[in-house]
């Protein structure tokens, strides 16, 4: 018969130490990635309004993440968007001359340094279209509590955009933004984790849509967001519920609520399915005008235009600034192939209507917008 050489206290301490060495037991927030990965993804997007196919977009992307020298990681992304179709000149009206074709190329790069209780990430982003160039820099960080149950996040970012529309309604216009972020992520229970993030963005410059008639917006915009997210793991099914709520407000007096949810259900053989639902509602910008036109001149002139109203007054017939609600339903199917490969396919259906708004005043008279979104992705780890 043998007897243990350890006291109960020593045994408990040894078990804790061993448990900490198990993969996944430590909080992940402050750890560098253990593996590198390369991801390829392709997006096929098409939207339409009743009787009219509008915008079609094809967008391949590649993303690379790699650990470097133990305490560092780098990640970069390249994307190309090929966009074509018909875009409204005002409200939902399309003219035969409004066919557009554009190609956008975008890239970003970030480097992260990992510390014992936090991270610091510096990033840069660049994108170019034939009439729009954007440059952005950012600095983001996290700081975790000693028990790794709470992580604070902070961020600072700035962008400088150059705008040169092909119709030359303006030349060499600019838009600049400065954004700040503060957030906290908290382990709530062994199966629940919550996150609260606040952002504020101040922008100045050219906010008009140069291709829309009577689009004259303020030259500054202040945007605030409050984002609450909650992930819950269900022991009974092995699935994970991911819920999010975002409140958005800005100086255009737009208020928006977004509620999103998805459920990740692993199946046997490396398969998993992820159904998703997203509900969105927004109020109209204070300078948006409904499709009710000047009594004398008719469309697209805003009401009062022929009666001496200031032609430079703020106004916009942009459907995206109207009051509406939107629903997205989607389904993703993913499969892990061995430990190194993951492939997934995702299909979504999106629709927005003025009558679907949940709060504030709606904007009647606009045609519904429908979109279908298809994605396929492939990830290889090493």
């Amino acid at each position, binding site marked *: 018969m043998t007897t243990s050489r350890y006291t109960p206290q020593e045994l408990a301490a040894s078990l804790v130490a061993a448990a900490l060495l198990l993969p996944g037991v430590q909080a992940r927030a402050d750890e560098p990635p253990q593996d590198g990965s390369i991801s390829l993804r392709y997006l096929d997007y098409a939207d339409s309004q009743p009787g009219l196919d509008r915008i079609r977009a094809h*967008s391949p992307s590649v993303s690379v993440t790699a650990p470097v020298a133990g305490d560092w990681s780098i990640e970069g992304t390249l994307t190309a968007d090929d966009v074509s179709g018909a875009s409204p000149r005002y409200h939902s009206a399309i003219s035969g001359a409004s066919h557009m074709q554009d190609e956008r190329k975008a890239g970003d790069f970030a480097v992260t340094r990992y510390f014992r209780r936090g991270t610091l990430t510096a990033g840069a982003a660049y994108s170019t279209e034939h009439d729009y160039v954007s440059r952005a820099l950012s600095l983001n960080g996290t700081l975790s509590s000693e028990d790794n149950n709470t992580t604070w996040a902070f961020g600072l970012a700035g962008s400088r955009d150059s705008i040169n529309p092909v119709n030359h309604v303006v030349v060499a216009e600019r838009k600049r933004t400065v954004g700040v972020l503060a957030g906290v992520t908290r382990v709530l*229970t062994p199966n629940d984790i919550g996150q609260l993030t606040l952002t504020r963005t101040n922008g100045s410059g050219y906010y008009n849509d140069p291709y829309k008639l009577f689009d004259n917006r303020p030259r500054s915009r202040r945007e605030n967001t*409050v984002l609450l997210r909650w992930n819950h793991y269900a022991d009974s099914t092995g699935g994970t519920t991911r819920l999010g709520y975002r409140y958005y407000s800005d100086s255009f007096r737009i208020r928006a609520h977004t509620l999103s949810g998805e459920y990740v259900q692993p199946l046997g053989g490396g398969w998993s399915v992820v159904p998703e639902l997203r509900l969105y509602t927004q109020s109209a910008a204070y300078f948006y005008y409904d499709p009710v036109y000047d009594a004398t001149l008719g469309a697209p002139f805003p009401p009062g235009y022929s009666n001496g109203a200031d032609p430079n007054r703020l106004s916009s017939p942009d459907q995206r600034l109207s009051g509406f609600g939107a629903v997205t339903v989607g389904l993703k199917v993913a499969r892990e192939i061995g430990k190194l490969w993951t492939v997934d396919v995702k299909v979504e259906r999106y629709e927005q209507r003025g009558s679907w708004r949940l709060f504030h005043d709606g904007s009647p008279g606009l045609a519904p917008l429908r979109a279908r979104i298809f994605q396929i992705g492939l990830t290889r780890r090493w």
Partner: protein
Amino acid sequence: MKVLVLIAPALLALAGCANVQPWEKGNLAKPEMTFGGNRLETRYADHVYTSREAAAGGAGVGGGGCGCN
């Protein structure tokens, strides 16, 4: 003020939770329990919604702008 009304209960809820021990975090370490998700998938979603809706952002700062909105 409305924002404070919204976030104050959330802050209290987040701050008032019991401590979870390291050996209880196995489920929390699953990839689907992180908030980041698939990076490219998130980018696509952000880009699509930014192009079609007025509200944008919320989860981070640092992305560049585009002529899509």
